């Protein structure tokens, strides 16, 4: 072994050294350029983000000047009198996104735990791939599916019994009133729940798989049931990442546009009911933008809405980071 290495190795080693040293000489400039390019890539993101925020703010500024901060909590959106307020859209955006997360969360937990603990090896891949495919379905397809299939089903089988059963109750009844239109907040939330499901599930699976087997096996060893292991070992271990996953899903739901526009009912009126038509910031922009004339207060207000959506998304992201950090500390 040694002999062969010495015999054949030394000349080629010398050649390699030579080529390395010559490569270094060229590499110095190339490396500098490479590093500069990397800097450029990094800075590019910052500049791009900064310019987008600046554009939205500058575009929306006339609306803020005109209506003041009242823009944020005025529930009117009247293109005829050019009196605009963002409250209905902000409310609709948050309400529908929260519905989506509330529906998607238990489902994601279930799927993720099933995949990482219970599912036989032969089922893991097909289900995992199917969930990833859900993420690949374009949003407009979800919109059409929601509009032609889910909304009529909701109008026929879900909304009428709920309205009859829960509508007359005090307080909680407010959530279940109005005519059964099929569309509305709940339908929009339902569609979005399915859209954000793959993202949340994927992160949950990753988290659950990172739980050290030793911890789980010890728990099983002392006689814990599957549910107890799930509740007392897996979830506490991955809590931080799970909060991050939920926030990611929420962030995606906040900005969803096409699918929501199809099913939310697009009414610029404030209503507490889950079945009432509403509007989100994104759906309003999608609806009104093509007919908003240049220099009109409507266009300014739409840009201001865009800015508000940006800020809301930013707050959600910041909050998720903060939660994750505080979790890490404890």
């Amino acid at each position: 072994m040694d002999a062969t290495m010495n015999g054949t190795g030394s000349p080629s080693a010398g050649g390699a050294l030579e080529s390395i040293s010559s490569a270094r000489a060229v590499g110095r400039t190339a490396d500098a350029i490479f590093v500069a390019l990397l800097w450029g890539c990094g800075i590019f993101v910052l500049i791009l983000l900064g310019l987008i925020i600046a554009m939205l703010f500058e575009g929306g500024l006339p609306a803020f000047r005109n209506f003041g901060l009242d823009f944020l909590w005025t529930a009117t959106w009247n293109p005829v009198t050019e009196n605009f307020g963002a409250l209905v859209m902000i409310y609709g955006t948050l309400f529908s996104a929260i519905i989506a997360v509330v529906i998607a969360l238990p489902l994601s937990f279930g799927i993720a735990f099933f995949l990482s603990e219970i599912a036989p090896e032969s089922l893991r891949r097909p289900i995992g791939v199917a969930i990833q495919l859900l993420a690949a379905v374009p949003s407009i397809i979800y919109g059409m599916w929601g509009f032609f299939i889910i909304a009529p089903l909701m109008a026929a089988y879900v909304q009428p019994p709920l309205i009859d059963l829960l509508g007359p109750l005090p307080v909680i009844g407010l959530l279940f009133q109005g005519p059964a239109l099929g569309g509305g907040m709940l339908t929009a939330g339902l569609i979005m729940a399915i859209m954000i499901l793959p993202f949340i599930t994927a992160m949950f699976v990753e988290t659950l798989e990172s739980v050290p087997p030793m911890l789980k096996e010890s728990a099983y060893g002392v006689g814990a049931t599957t549910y107890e292991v799930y509740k007392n070992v897996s979830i506490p271990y991955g809590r931080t990442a799970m909060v991050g996953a939920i926030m990611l899903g929420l962030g995606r739901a906040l900005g969803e546009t096409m699918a929501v526009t199809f099913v939310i009912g697009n009414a610029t009126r404030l209503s507490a009911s889950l079945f009432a038509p509403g509007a989100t910031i994104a759906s309003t922009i999608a609806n009104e933008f093509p007919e908003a004339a240049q220099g009109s207060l409507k266009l300014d207000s739409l840009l201001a809405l865009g800015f508000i959506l940006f800020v809301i998304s930013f707050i959600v992201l910041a909050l998720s980071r903060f939660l994750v950090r505080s979790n890490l500390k404890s």
Partner: protein
Amino acid sequence: MKITTALGMLAVAGTLFAGSASAGDITGAGATFPAPVYQAWAVAYKEKTGTGLNYQSIGSGAGQTQIFNRTVDFGASDAPVQTEKLAQQKLLQFPAVIGSVVPIVNLEGIAANQLKLTGPVLADIYLGKITKWSDKAIADLNPGVKLPDLGIVPTYRSDGSGTTFVFASYLSDVSADWKSKVGAATSVSWPAGAGGKGNEGVAGTVKNTKGAIGYVEYIYASANNLVTVQLQNKAGKYVSPTVPAFQAAAANADWAGAKDFAASMINTPGDATWPITSATFILLPKEPKSGEQAAEVIKFFNWAFDNGNEIAEKLHYIPLPKDVAARVREAWKAEVKVDGKPVWAN
């Protein structure tokens, strides 16, 4: 063998691309409602003359923006542009084609054009004042028709559109309450009901929802066999939405007295008139950068006014009445000039 096929395909591709963008093509942008007829005209016109039209149906508002910036040869708008704005932007406005808006309903056992409605009742439905199909106000108009005790779901266009402008203009004309509370624009603050995106969104919502009422362009309703209703016109007669009724509206409009051709065809007089009718407009620079391009645009519409009527009618649009087309031609000669000379003379 392979090379020849490849060359052949290249040649085909070459002619295709050459066909879609040759130098002298006209560009236009704006209203979506007349886009099918502009595009059909463009195909026929290109066969005749070799000049193509590249029309982008991006919405009236965006079309106005584009012609204000002069990025296209002409803009198209469903709602007429205000006189001051036209003067400020140095634009000539003329109508190209006429269309109508029709209410559609989803009621079991009610056939097309069986239900009768008046303007004020329609306004009250959309105001959320009449909420049941069995309401006395509707029943009184329809003796002998069995109306269900069902909630009415008013449905509207959620996207800004010329259709909404025309419909809301009509409701403003027939109902003082609507005029003061809601008014008319390409999108309004609807007091009741739910919105769908585009004609197909409204039609789909109406189809999905028992007891729904909506409004769409006539071309869309007729192509999809939607259940339309009769409306009472200004003369007090009930009319069904038919092409002769729309033509009557166009013929009875006050074109002579209208500024910038923005003659209202909302609730015009005449026994046979359909009350919700409107023209869609073209915006052309009065002092174009390129006289030749402006002349090409005028030639295109001149040809369409002479030879495009059959195509328009096939697509359920109403061509301009002859005297109106003549007035438009006068305006082209008088107003579209480069260095004081008209760019087009018949």
